[in-house]
Every structure is written in C-alpha cells, then in structure tokens.
C-alpha cells in the first residue's frame, strides 16, 4: 500500500503529540499538580494514530480508560484536555470528567470510559444509529486485551455483527490488564481469532508499527464502509508505564527484561528511523517538531493553570433531574 510522505510525517507528528502529552501529564501528576486516575498510553501511540488516520471528521470514537491517545488522534486539543486534567471549567467536560471521561462531542468523540468494556455495546448502538439513518459514517471503538474478557465484549460485538453496524473494534493488546498477564486472562495467541465466533472479519497486526496498523485499519475501514459489518482488529503492543500514573514501579509484577525488550520496539523511533533513512524528514525537522509540541504543551499548562476551578455551588450542574 502506498502511503504518501505527507501522511507519514503526519503520523509521526500525531504520535509525538501523544507521547509528549502523556509525558507532560505524567510529570504533572508526580508533582501533585493533577490528581485522579491517569492511565498513560506511552508506547502505544501507533494504534490510535494508525487507525484514526483512516477516519473522517464525522466518524465516531468510543475510547477506553487509556484514552488520551485516541482523543488526541481524533482531534483533541491540548488546552481543553489539559484543563480537564486540572479539573478546570475550561476543560472539555468542565472538570466533571477528568482523564477517564474525556469527551469532545463536537468531534464525535463520545468519551473515554472508566468502566472497562463499557464502551463496546455503546459503540454497537452508535453503529446502529448510522445504519438506521443511512449516513456514511462509522465508529472506531478502542478497548484493551482485558476488556476482551468482559461480557460486554461478547454481547456488544455480537449485537454489532447482527445489525451489521459499521464499527471497527480495535483491541489494543498491551499484554497486561493491570497486573494480570495474558496467560491468566485467555488461552489465545491472537485475540482477533474471536472474530470468527461472531462471523466477522478479524486481523492481528504489529501495534508498534504505525504503517502496518494504518494498512490493516485501511483494509478494515474499506470493508466496513462497503457495508460488510464490523471488523475486529487486534494491535499487539505494550504498556510502557505503570497501569496508572500513581503506580510508578509496576515492574514488581513485570519482568524487567520483558519491559526492556518492548522499550526497544518504540513505535515513534521505528517510524523516525524509516523516515530518516528515506530522507523524508531530517533530524533537525524532528527536533523542530518536538520543540513545537513542547511549546504548545507549555501554553496548554499555562492555560489550565490560569483557568478557574468550578464553584462548589455548581455541583448539580448538568444533572437534569
């Protein structure tokens, strides 16, 4: 598959934005400036970027608890995201949601989710609304390998299959569900094998190779847009950090050698290397991109810091009864 140089550079840019956002958010958490549950996606950037580059502006996103990357790739902006992490009224959810409930409805980002698997049946329903109205949209629904063992996974995907909902279910298989390894979670090598149980297409791809993810998602999106129903795409990747920002040395349950091996498979470095070799980009340009993102992040943090907190008296706002 031919991918344009511009698209490749965009992929690098999008992955860098996610990585740098996650790093900054992590630092702010450790410094005690932001609070709550923060699930970082460092090391998994190729999955949202490779998939979402295939979506159109009006396609929908259903995300998981580890959702910063999905939201960013779908058009989330630093300022309102950072402000949400700070619990400020200028955040996407006016400080009501935080990291686990990022939503940006203007861009059809229907939320990250604190309930593992919670978004899967919802994605099926959003898909059905598309079938129902006959619009040319689709849904990308991201979930973890752990989420693939919930009842919601089975019911949601089967439902989507039966109503031919245009949903791309993306299993972001980062090998762990908090401290529980894959071998204690299921007996499969490839989780995409489960697609067969629902009579839909399934594929497994290297989730640290953004070009491979892009290609696999492209194929899946074509199937879905052709009216052939949902597809299950498994992207094999790895969670670099602790399960959440407050769990720094999660290595107590992970073999450091395993972590090290995956750190070597950095999706950003991999693409950088390819682009440098093909002379599509220069070191200086990458440096420039990094700086630009850092500067944007500085501004976002400033914006978040300066923004007001909600008034205690507004506790009941957005509750209709």
């Amino acid at each position, binding site marked *: 598959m031919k991918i344009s140089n511009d698209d490749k550079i965009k992929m690098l840019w999008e992955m860098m934005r996610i990585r740098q956002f996650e790093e900054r958010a992590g630092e702010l958490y450790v410094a005690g400036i932001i609070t709550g549950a923060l699930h970082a996606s460092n090391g998994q950037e190729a999955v949202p970027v490779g998939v979402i580059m295939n979506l159109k502006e009006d396609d929908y996103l259903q995300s998981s608890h580890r959702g910063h990357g999905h939201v960013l790739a779908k058009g989330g902006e630093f300022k309102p995201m950072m402000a949400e992490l700070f619990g400020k009224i200028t955040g996407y959810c006016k400080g009501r949601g935080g990291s*686990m*409930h990022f939503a940006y409805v203007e861009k059809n980002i229907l939320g990250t989710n604190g309930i593992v698997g919670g978004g899967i049946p919802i994605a099926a329903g959003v898909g059905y609304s598309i079938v129902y109205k006959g619009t040319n949209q689709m849904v990308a629904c991201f979930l973890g390998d752990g989420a693939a063992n*919930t009842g919601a996974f089975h019911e949601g995907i089967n439902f989507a299959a039966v109503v031919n909902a245009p949903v791309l279910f993306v299993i972001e298989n980062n090998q762990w569900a908090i401290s529980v390894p894959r071998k204690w979670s299921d007996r499969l090598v490839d989780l995409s094998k489960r697609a067969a149980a629902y009579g839909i297409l399934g594929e497994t791809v290297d989730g640290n190779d953004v070009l491979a993810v892009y290609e696999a998602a492209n194929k899946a999106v074509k199937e879905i847009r052709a009216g052939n129903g949902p597809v299950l795409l498994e992207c094999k990747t790895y969670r670099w950090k602790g399960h959440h920002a407050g769990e720094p040395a999660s290595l107590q349950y992970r073999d450091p050698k395993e972590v090290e091996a995956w750190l070597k498979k950095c999706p950003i470095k991999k693409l950088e290397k390819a682009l440098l070799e093909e002379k599509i980009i220069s070191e200086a340009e990458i440096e420039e991109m990094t700086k630009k993102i850092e500067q944007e992040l500085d501004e976002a943090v400033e914006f978040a810091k300066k923004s007001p*907190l909600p008034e*205690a008296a507004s*506790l009941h706002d957005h509750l209709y009864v």
Partner: protein
Amino acid sequence: MRTITYSEAIHESIDYNMEKDETVFNLGEDIGVLGGGFRATHDLYEKYGRKRVLDTPLSEIAIVGAAIGAALGGLRPIPEIMYIDFTPGCMDMIVNQMAKIHFMFGGQIKVPMVLRTVCGAAGYNAAQHSQSMYPFFVHTPGLIVVTPSTPYDAKGLLNTSIADDNPVIFMEHKRLYTSKGEVPEEFYTIPFGKADVKREGDDLTIVATHALVHDALALAEEMEKEGTSIEVIDPRTLVPFDKETIFKSVEKTNKLIVADESILSCGMASEISAIVAEEMFDYLDKPIIRVASPNCHCPFSMPLEDAYIPGKEELKEAIAKVL
C-alpha cells in the same frame, strides 16, 4: 494493645481463615501478584499460591458467578470486586443468584461466600469510581451487608463473615484502609446485627457508618468542650440491623442524625431514619436529619468532590438544626 491498619486487619483475617480452613480461597482482579489495590491480600499469593489466590480475567460476572458455583461445590470463596462501582456489571449474579439460591431451592443448599468490595469517594476518581451504592444490596433480601469502620471491627466482622454459611457483602471503605486502631492478635468474632456505641452522650444521637463514624467522633469530641454531649452509634452491619441499640439511645437523647455516604435518595440514611421514625416517633423532639451524599454523581474536579463528600461540615449543619 498493638495497633494495625484497617487493611492489615482485613489481611490478617483472610490469612488466618485460609490457614485454618483449606476450602477458603480468594478470586478477583489483581488480588494475587499485586496483592489488591489496597494491599488487603498482599503476600497471600506467595504464601498460598494461585489455586487459593486466583487472579482472574477481567470478568466480574464470572468472578461472582464462579464464586457462587464454588460455594455450591463445597468451597468458601472470597470474591473481590475491585470497586463497588463495578458491581452493577455483575448485579444479576448478586441479586438473582447469590441472594436467592438458598431461598428458591427451599433451603436445601447454602451459599457460603464473602464478596469483598470497596466503596467511598477519595482521590478525585470521578463518577464511576467513587460510589457507595450498597443500598442496592440492602434492598435485596438474602444478603448480609457488613460495613466496618475500624480495624477492630474489620477483623472481627470478616472472621464472622467467613465463618457464616450465607452470602455476605463485605463493604470496605477507601478512606479507611490506612486508618489505624487497636486489634488483638488472637482470633475473635463480632456478631452480625450488633451495633457498637462508639461514644456515649446524652444530648443527641448520631448513627454513622464507615468514614462518617470518624467524622462524627471528631465532632463529638470538639463539641464536648462546648458542653454538648453526643452519642455516636455505628450499626456495623446494615443487614441484619440492630434497631434496639439505636432505639435505646433515641429514648435517651430524643434527637437523631443519621450519617451515611450512600446517596440520599433511597439511601441507607433514609432507611435508618424510616426505621426509627416508624417506631420511635413519640420519643423524637425534632425531625430526624439525614447526612448523605447528594443526589448527584461524584464529579472529578477537586472542589466539586470535596463539596460532594459528606463529612464534618455537613454534620455540623445538621447538629445546628437539631440542637
């Protein structure tokens, strides 16, 4: 006496019961190698192995359902649901199976299991990780519901729960895990349905649960200096419920505040108020005041969560109303 934390007290009870009874085992997410989100099962995996400290797939329905099945098969399971917020996902297993099997089968078989879970708002974890919806369980006949507020109560009540042949929901509270208290090293039990008078007083009764017990006690201490004498009662188990201890106190003080972190509407504070109003109306000088979480979801932002959690401020306002 030696002092340990709430988390250590729970751990000690599980460990003791596992040592004593081969059929006791744990299952849940991240309870083994990680030792649980609040360290209540730490090192048990190392000591007893995976067979008895089973890290499960991320499948709440299977965790509770399999625990019920294991109980029917002759074991004494202790399933853990990481947060109470995830129990709605397996509510059918709890409400329609766990609570009903003994009854529906005409008493032929028992379901001895202790479902441990965690409630309470803390640390800005937003609407899906901050709830105290155990009134769902109180509403369901056939479930014993336990809410320890101190390390002493936690150990004694967990010992009783594990020994009981019927299904128990053992409600731990996030803000209490690191709290400390005196706990005997030896084995002891605390009977279900026996409230504890945490502090005696004459002017006003506060019935409080979990973290609110400590808020009420702190306030009672402060107000003692101003000449107000407050009695603080912790029901300790919501089902069965010890009305008598509360009635006796209301007879003496004629004023009642009920403080519980579940949501006000159909919450535990409401239920306890109704129980007292129904039978003790003549003894009450003032309306009963409920202190509870507001009829609202717990928001993420710091000032909003702080405003959301019922505590000393809300108790003070309530006291001002009844005194």
